[in-house]
């Protein structure tokens, strides 16, 4: 293993720091906090460096390092990033650092908390940087265990129920996906069987899998991974899980870990099983409308701000699915961009909500009010984050969602499949659902929380100090930077998505655009 490889470093750094933390006496909480923050900061810097050093003009995987691991399965420690994963590595770095920074409100058993947090960051890094199907899955699961413990120990509200429900749902989903991945591995002829993603992609390009095999394996991946991304109707874990999770956990999970399912769909399922994906697209479209419209409607009825955020993140996932289901270059690129944007946004919203909760001790929307007065800074940021969430231009979500909608608009897949003449009907529905419903619940919640008369008991709240502002400003800055200058990411993402879409179009001519 090449220990100077930047991707290996991003994966191992948090683990090394976590191991180091184990040897610090539990009573030295300050040392523990700073060490953990340092660890996540180094990781974030490495993530940023990987992004900066990544050459957008080259196609293919970069910073590759491969070490044989299990010969019997042709499994190897194989890291490398392309345009899609480098963006997500960057996301993980930023959100991980921010999550470590906002964890000052953890008042008990800090050592265990930070160890788990660092393991989570390492797992998230690993799953985006790996190019071996086994390790992609392995790292996701590695990041999942800390979630369970963190919600259970440091969570609030119905934490036990939330932790159990979330873990069981996610494990079940991940397990179904694992069966799908195993089936995929075994669908290859015995002499070329490999868990190496690069080899698999190469092989699938010249020898596509049989259509019936694809038809059979794809739903395992779709529903398994879909559960991880809270695809309706397997989404019920998300609001309750995020509602009860400690801030840092909610940030990392909603912001980063949740993207695993989407990432694996784009990275593994779409290029390897394009025919299967096309066969099951009709069902996916129905379900993703459920995400956008139904989850949005449910979000409107929420009384608890974190539950509302949970449902809103379910709704946002619908847009990513829409991009995947469009089978278009622009749609898929937009989907990746939304993944990044939503990652930052979800982290910011959960962080701010966490700050409010730490100050007031409640997340009930009706009990809060007029917080903009005592908490001028946090309140303002909350409003801005809310604007980003409803897709106002200037924030990162806007370009992403617009691209997804453009992709969906032109998607020939549905025109062929559903017989629509010019405009595919899910698109207007999605636009309507996404913008109107999202605006209604988010603005209504913000009005109740930030504006209006300030109850007496909230008048003496302390606004975030200079140090506490760092993570919020960092996240908001990224959100605005990408919103204003999406090219920085889009140019990086494009070669990778183009490659996937070309492969898909070659395998399923029905989805290619008539030019």
């Amino acid at each position, binding site marked *: 293993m090449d220990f100077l490889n930047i991707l290996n470093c991003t994966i191992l750094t948090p683990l090394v720091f976590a191991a180091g933390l184990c040897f610090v006496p539990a009573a030295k909480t300050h040392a523990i906090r700073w060490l953990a923050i340092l660890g996540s900061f180094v990781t974030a810097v490495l993530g940023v460096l990987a992004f900066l050093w990544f050459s957008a003009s080259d196609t293919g995987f970069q910073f590759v390092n491969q070490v*044989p*691991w*299990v*010969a*019997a*399965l042709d*499994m190897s420690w194989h890291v490398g990033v392309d345009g899609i994963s480098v963006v997500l590595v960057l996301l993980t770095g930023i959100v991980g650092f921010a999550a470590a920074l906002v964890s000052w409100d953890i008042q008990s058993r800090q050592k*265990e908390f930070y160890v788990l947090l660092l393991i989570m960051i390492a797992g998230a890094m690993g799953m985006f940087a790996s190019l071996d199907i*086994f390790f992609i*899955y*392995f790292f996701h*699961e*590695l990041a*999942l*265990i800390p979630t*369970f*413990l963190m919600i*259970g*120990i440091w969570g609030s509200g119905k*934490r*036990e129920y939330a*932790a*159990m429900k979330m*873990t*069981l749902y996610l*494990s*079940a989903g991940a*397990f*179904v996906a*694992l*069966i799908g991945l*195993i*089936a995929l*591995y*075994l669908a290859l002829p015995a002499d070329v069987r490999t868990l190496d993603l690069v080899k698999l992609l190469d092989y699938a390009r010249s020898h596509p899998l049989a259509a019936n095999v694809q038809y059979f394996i794809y739903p395992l991946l779709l529903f398994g991974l879909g559960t991880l991304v809270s695809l309706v109707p397997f989404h019920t874990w998300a609001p309750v899980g995020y509602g009860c999770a400690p801030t840092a956990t909610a940030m990392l999970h909603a912001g980063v870990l949740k993207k695993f399912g989407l990432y694996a769909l784009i990275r593994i399922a779409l290029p390897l099983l394009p025919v299967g994906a096309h066969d099951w697209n009709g069902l996916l479209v129905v379900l993703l409308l459920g995400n956008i419209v139904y989850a949005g409607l449910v979000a409107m009825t929420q009384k608890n701000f974190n539950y509302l955020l949970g449902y809103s993140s379910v709704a946002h996932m619908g847009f990513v699915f829409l991009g995947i289901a469009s089978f278009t270059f622009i749609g898929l690129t937009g989907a990746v961009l939304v993944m990044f944007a939503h990652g930052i946004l979800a982290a910011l919203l959960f962080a701010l909500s966490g700050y409010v909760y730490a100050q007031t001790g409640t997340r009930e929307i009706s009990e809060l009010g007029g917080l903009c007065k005592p908490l001028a800074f946090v309140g303002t940021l909350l409003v801005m984050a809310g604007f980003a969430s409803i897709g106002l231009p200037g924030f990162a979500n806007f370009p992403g969602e617009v691209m997804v909608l453009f992709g969906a608009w032109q998607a020939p897949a549905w025109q062929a499949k559903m017989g629509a003449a010019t405009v595919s009907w899910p698109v207007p529905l999605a636009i309507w659902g996404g913008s109107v419903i999202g605006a209604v619940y988010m603005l209504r919640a913000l009005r109740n929380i930030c504006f209006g008369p300030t109850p007496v008991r909230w008048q003496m709240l302390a606004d975030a100090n200079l140090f506490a502002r760092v993570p919020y400003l960092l996240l908001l800055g990224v959100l605005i930077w990408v919103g204003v200058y999406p090219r920085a990411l889009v140019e990086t993402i494009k070669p990778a998505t183009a490659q996937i879409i070309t492969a898909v179009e070659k395998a399923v001519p029905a989805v290619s655009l008539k030019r």
Partner: protein
Amino acid sequence: MNLSLLKLEIATCGLAMLVLMLEAFVPRRDKRFLGYLGAAGLLAILAWSYCPSVTAGGFTMGSGFNGMWVNDAMALYFKRLFLVGTALVLVMSVGFARQLEGGAGEFFALLMFGCTGMMLTASVNDFLMLFVALETVTVSGYILVAWLRRQQQSLEAGVKYLILGALSTAFLVFGITFIYGSTGATGFADVAAKIGTAGAPLKLGLLLVLAGLGFKMACVPFQAWVPDVYQGAPAPVTAFLATGSKAAGFVLLLRVLFGALQSVKPTWVLVIGTLAGLSVLYGNLAAMPQRNVKRLLGYSSISHAGFLLLGVAAADSFGIGAVLFYLVAYLFTNLCAFTVISCLAGTLPDDERENYAGLAQRSPLLAAAMTVALASLAGVPPMAGFFAKFLIFTAIVGQKMWCLVIIGAIGVVVSLYYYLGVVKAMYWQEPRETGAITVAWPMKALLWVTMAAVIGIGVCQGAFTRWAFDAAATLVK
């Protein structure tokens, strides 16, 4: 007559006798020295098994004793597994020694005799030898289970194990009778040669033999003894039963299935598959309401027997390799869990889950070790148990046994629920009593070793997979 084929067994047995004799001369307070001597001896034998003179082909590998005995890569694999397992159980017993009333030396010796029996099972190539080797394991098991004569539960467990064990022996013997009757031989090779002509009596005999082995493996429907015995027996003995004894059952099963019954594979695949599915379902569903941690591990052991049988049902070299890997992963995982339990045996009133509440605050090390073990049992990465399950599922998906895949999937998800229940108690709940629990250093060392093994095997799977697959390749041609 080639005694060099028996090198390792003779050494182990001799070591046990040495400990037995020294017991008479060692003063009472130095009894723990015997345990360390035994463990060190077993590890030395393990190291010896890697010497070229043992492993290189020729005089210690091969078959002998009129075809009753076969020493191949798989036999060696299992013998090493038994040696490691017993050595660790011995260390655990030393830590447990203040619970053993007197006679700790005999206890250690019996563990080593049991280990000898297990090592014999690994090389069995004849039904008569199978019977004798299995009984060596079983009889030492009876004694060890009932060892704590002052504890009613231990004695009750002993009686249960005894009666059900003897019953399964009776079935086994009756089964072998019919096999002998219909083929006129007891050697696996002879049985395999005549299997085509022998009809119903042979099948019946094999079914009865399976019942006898099923008892050792603790699979449904021969699982009735498991919960009580796991709960009642001293913790190190439970560990011994859960790891060594179960592995002995599996090595015998593999020997019988692939030595004698290779040609009727489709028939037994069906039987094994059914047993596997039932064990996974029963073990996991019955474990859900359990509140006693040892009992819970008992039921979970039934479900793991089911997972192992899934690999056997795949019946190709990949599936068997997966089973061998699984057994090693399971060995270290269980030893880790039972080390925690035996550390707590003197401190907590009993093994109810409520007593584990807040363990993380009383002893972070014990709680962490238990969590690692339970995560591995549940099949969560990066623990060894995850990769083991991954291999098993790869094997059965490869055979397109979708029904079993679904049952296995249900089992995995259900098991997560009850394993997490224990983790939940240890980490989330407030302890009933406060006060740190101190762990003696040998136990501490054992905890670190087993934890490192569970995580190490789970991360660096390469070498272990290669050993397991190489061993499986000698069996499945």
